[in-house]
């Protein structure tokens, strides 16, 4: 009895000593996020499926808060009014009413800005994932996949640049804890061009497919290059590098005789959890609506079919804060209509602009006429000096690309913001948005 007592009794003591030893040597197994895929594991070793998820995440995220972007550009560019009973700031601050100023912490800049950089973050994750994945993907596929990511990234940076303009943007944002500097206006747009060019170098002439499927334009690297070049042409024109614009156009999906709607789009659907086209504005609604800036109707050339195609006469005049309109914004006919990212109609007009600037009025007018014919207008008969041609091109861009976020940027490029119509006395036209407060 005595013997067994001791044996039993010392046993737990020995166990305890063993456990203390265990505590110092044995580790707590870290638990990875049980509810969501974790960033680190995707960056370190993503599966093929996870890479596809990242791409779908990018293409879905590209649409996030774009309604604010289009409303910003459309309102300041005096294309349409965004009437809202729940938020009057669309018709006060955005339109520079009286002493109203743009705020650096309000939805019209903070929401599109953060959504844009969120997509950029996802593209950087995709780049890391493609670099590190142990999935069976060839080097060439990793390369073209990365080029896809960079192309999307440069498009998103361009959107940020369009809003911030003279304030410049951050381009190097790969490391959240060590963000690159804000570049100047010129450095920003040049960096975007460089990024597009670098991506295109890996895309052009490639025989590879992306190691994933994309709904933006295509899965073929070489074909995707044409989308990249279309964006490059837009950026080159913004940079007034007319020669490069011409080269980029020739390598893009630009087609003088092709369909004007050919291009890349944001897609929408009614499927559960998917997004609806936020710019679709049901006719004759009051409260939350978009209505046409009246001069868009009155300035139109007689018979311009684009007016009827993109607007609709209201039953009742829409009114808010001394602004009124008799026409609904009706570019999108349903809540699942696609919104263009870039399309052939813009490319044809970029072609016209580049050729006008390169002192080639013949080709410029040729392109202008293609657009005019599409709107049932007769050939251009005006003067062919540079100034006249640019004015004509700006007008065609106004009607062809109505509501697609161009008018404000085009007028800004040519320093013509003061020519935008001011329907309400005392309103101002903003050049750019302030840098968001969270960046200060």
């Amino acid at each position, binding site marked *: 009895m005595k013997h067994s007592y001791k044996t039993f009794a010392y046993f737990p003591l020995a166990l305890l000593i063993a456990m203390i030893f265990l505590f110092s040597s044995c580790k707590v197994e870290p638990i990875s996020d049980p509810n969501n895929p974790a960033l680190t594991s995707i960056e370190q070793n993503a599966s093929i499926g996870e890479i596809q998820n990242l791409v*779908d995440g990018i293409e879905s995220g590209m649409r996030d808060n774009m309604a604010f972007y289009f409303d910003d550009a459309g309102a300041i560019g005096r294309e349409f009014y965004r009437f809202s009973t729940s938020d009057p700031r669309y018709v006060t601050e955005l339109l520079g009413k009286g002493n109203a100023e743009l705020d650096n912490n309000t939805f019209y800049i903070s929401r599109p800005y953060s959504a844009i950089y969120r997509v950029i973050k996802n593209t950087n994750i995709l780049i890391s994932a493609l670099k590190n994945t142990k999935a069976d993907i060839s080097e060439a596929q990793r390369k073209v996949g990365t080029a896809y990511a960079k192309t999307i990234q440069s498009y998103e940076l361009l959107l940020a640049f369009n809003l911030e303009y003279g304030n410049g943007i951050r381009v190097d944002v790969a490391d959240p804890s060590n*963000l690159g500097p804000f570049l100047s206006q010129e450095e920003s747009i040049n960096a975007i061009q460089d990024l597009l060019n670098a991506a295109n170098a890996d895309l052009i002439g490639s025989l590879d497919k992306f190691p994933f499927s994309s709904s933006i334009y295509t899965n073929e690297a070489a074909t995707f290059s044409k989308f990249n070049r279309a964006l490059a042409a837009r950026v080159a024109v913004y940079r007034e590098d007319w020669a490069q614009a011409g080269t980029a156009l020739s390598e893009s999906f630009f087609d003088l005789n092709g369909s004007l709607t050919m291009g890349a789009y944001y897609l929408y659907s009614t499927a559960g959890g998917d997004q609806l086209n936020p710019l679709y504005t049901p006719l004759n609604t009051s409260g939350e609506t978009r209505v046409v800036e009246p001069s868009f109707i009155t300035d139109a050339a007689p018979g311009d079919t684009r007016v009827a195609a993109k607007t609709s006469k209201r039953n009742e005049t829409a009114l808010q804060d001394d602004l009124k309109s008799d026409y609904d914004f009706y570019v999108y006919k349903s809540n699942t209509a696609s919104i263009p990212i870039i399309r052939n109609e813009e490319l044809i007009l970029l072609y016209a602009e580049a050729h006008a600037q390169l002192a080639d009025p013949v080709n410029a007018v040729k392109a202008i006429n293609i657009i005019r014919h599409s709107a049932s207008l007769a050939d251009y008969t005006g003067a062919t000096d540079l100034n006249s041609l640019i004015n004509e091109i700006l007008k065609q861009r106004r009607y062809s690309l109505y509501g697609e976020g161009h008018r404000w940027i085009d007028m800004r490029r040519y320093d013509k913001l003061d020519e935008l119509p001011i329907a309400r006395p005392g309103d101002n036209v903003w050049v750019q948005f302030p840098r968001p407060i969270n960046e200060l």
Partner: protein
Amino acid sequence: MRNFPKHVMVFLLILAIPFAVCAQFTVTGTVTGVGGDPLSGASVKLKNSTDVGVTTTASGKFSISLPGKSGILDVSFVGYKSESFSVDPSTGNLNIALAQDASNLEEVVVTGLATNIKRSNLANAVASISANDLVGTTTQATLDGALYGKFTGANISSNSGAPGSGISVKLRGVTSIIGNSQPLFIVDGVYYDNSSIDNGLNAVSKAAAQGSSVLQNNPSNRLADLNPDDIERVEILKGASTAAIYGAKAAGGVVIITTKKGKSGKTKVEFSQSTGIQMQLRKLGGRTWDAAKVEDAFDSLGLALYNAVGGKTFNYEDELYGQKGLMNNSRLSLSGGNDRTTFYTGFTYENDNGIIRRTGYEKKNFRVNLTQKAFKFLDLSLNYNYVESESNRAFFNNDNTGATLGVSFISTPWWIDLHPDANGNYPNNPVATSNFLQTRDLITNREKVNRTLLGGTATFKILNSGKHNVKVIANGGIDYYTLNTLGIFPKELQFEKEGNGTNGLSTYGTTITRNQNASMIAVYQFSASQKLNSRTQAGLTAEDVDQNTVMATATQLIGTQTNVNQAGAVQPYQNKILQKDRGFFAQEEVNYNDIFIGTAGLRGDRSSRNGDANKIYYFPKASLAINIANMPFWNWEQVSQLKLRAAYGESGNFAPFGAIYTPLVPVIYNGTTGSLIDVIQGNDKLEPERQKELELGIDFSLLQNRISFEGTYYVKKANDLILPVVIPNSSGFTNSWQNAANIRNRGVELQVNAIPVASKDWNWNIQVLYWKNTAIVTRLDLPPFNTGGFGSTLGTYRVQKGLSPTQIVGTAGPKDKVDPISGLGLLGNSEPDFQLSFTNNLKWKNFELSVLCHWKNGGSNINLTNFLSDLFATSPDYDDKTLDPTGTLSNGPYRLQESNNTASIWVQDATYFRVREMAVNYRLPDFIKGVSQIKVGLSAHNLINVFKYGSYDPEVSNFGISAINTNVEVTPFPTSKSVHFNVSVTF
């Protein structure tokens, strides 16, 4: 140690015990207390022995077999002064009358994982609540409700009056800003999960859709599953200075619960039955109407409706909240045992109907506690508890769809007829989006819980030589439960049909929680001399948490079907919480002659909740108590105790679950699912929130312990509080989790116990508690921000350096004090100025009267029930003219007009005085043979309430157990008061 030689003798005697095993004798006796009443459960044990001891029976009798030829018996009972008696074979029958002790100096207080300490030697203000304090006065549905007003330093509030409703317990002020602020509950060594689990009804209320992402469904918390009747005692470790030994999880404090154990002796059978009714705590009444008022508020449409019913009004408050809910609580317990084995088994059936039709709470609770002295060196104990409960909770709180009963009730004037026709078809509510009578009668919001708690302890007594005493305690437990939430909103509801809703909605959720914990602790007691002894302990702990919630929300229901697959659309949801913690601790206590009692300890914790799962975080503690009255020079007889104490400790609080991860969230695009980076950046470098608390106190007892005083001052710093800090959005994230704030709490806690009268027939006990806390934000690494509530025009919380974290700010009028930085008015603070509770216990012969009063002074609520009722022109005082100083506007329009200038209109004083518990009991004289006691009584809960606050009850929270932004009310389930008739019979 004045009788030194005697103690040496006893000491030698005890050493001699093992060598004199043959000699044995028996002592019998009776222990009595106040007025000669027998004391049941008093401890009678051989001095300095851990083995030889019994407890008295229900009639106060005991019989103890003692080894050797003589010995000293220690007789003790909680609330009484201990006595010692020398006994030998000639002693025979002892009649022992114990004297009451207001200071409870002999009480043994559980303060750590394996050891306990006499209250007189305690260096901390640990609150202890006995079974009698807890449930002795009146029937208690839940433990947390039973605690309020019974100890200092707590701010407890029920979130609403819904059956099984969640209760928020906050100890010593503000512990966190967005992290957990609730204490850790430990039942017989088992970590007791107290999660608040969402019921999915946001899909109907859309309360969290706009502006606020905080769910406002008022989920219950799972402490409701614990049966208060099974509890023997509760110890509350309020801050880090005491709770440090629990380390990384203990910032909210620790509540240690010990359940009842059997006592050796005759089997005791106890049956008790309580029957009562509950009713609405405060009725507000309705507005009185006439045609002019109707037309003013509801235009011609309203007037037509008013005329259609002939100007008749219905009392909808009575119809909706007027049910006298029958409450029933039946309990049977058996306990007993012998020298080696004891058992306790209890069964409780509780069935409470709410004050609203089709609401209520039903609980079945079964418990078995066993202890076994398996071998000389091994004691075993086992605790098993099974609970099954069901609560039907109606549908309340804020919503953005007008669907809840509360919002619908408040927006409907009483001349609208909402009653169903003969065929049971309900009319649509013409002035609101839902018909609350229809909603009440047709919806289901049910929670069902099945819970099993299993705990076991093995104590190995390795060495017991008198000088050296070593034991190892191994403890383990499992807490396993399944929670089912069921929400059914049939398609014929006004807010579901005709395109108003989703054509019916059914939500079914299952949460399975499986938590386990284990510890192994070695305790070494060393008596260096008669005067000096020490206790060393060290141990390992491990806790695992595994919680998995799956919920399906079905809409577009098929016919009257409620299965989630009988629907046009189903939205699944799943959330898991996994956690592994491993810790160790070591603690050294030194006691010099009960004069100086010093303790130092260290806890180290690893957890998967930290960014680095293997980093050890250390939490130190130290304390010192000095019993001046025990010093040799002390000869002031009137002061029987004078103790100074100081304690310091640190404890931790984990980041919100998931904060260390940077997840990618699912998005739908073009028929496929994608992964998009979340907008909040996780931070695997997060440090746990760390609390540092210093506590200073003085305790003294006067006049043979008839009066005792306990005073405590503390400084509790909650440092490195975790917040989602705004970062440059070009990073791709809007916020990042960071350690970004410190809060300092300072408070005072005072306690006086007294026995003014103790005679044969009369006995009077008083306890007065006073406590107050003030908090201030001392560090904030980000700009001040508003949080909680519904924006500054209605009053909101604001975290700002230099100000209280619980301050309520809002649009400022000319009379309001304005913060120069934010330009917002400083309109109130949810923290009370002070709280005072007062317990009286008066006995006369066999009668006993107990009253617990609670006065909470100050503290503000954001009363949006009032706002909504004014907005819908239904406030009872809408037409009174008591507010407008110019006397032109009546109250409703005046409040609405003023609220355009200042949010202070809705920030209202929540001061209250409340008689929380009140009871009269009568113990029948012994007249039936075999029955040792029969007690009958009447008791009441929250019967008397005095408050000016303009709603049902100032104790309310729309936002559940949030850390700071509570005290907001939006049409809650009204709270209730109750009266009970109680009978208990002990055999």
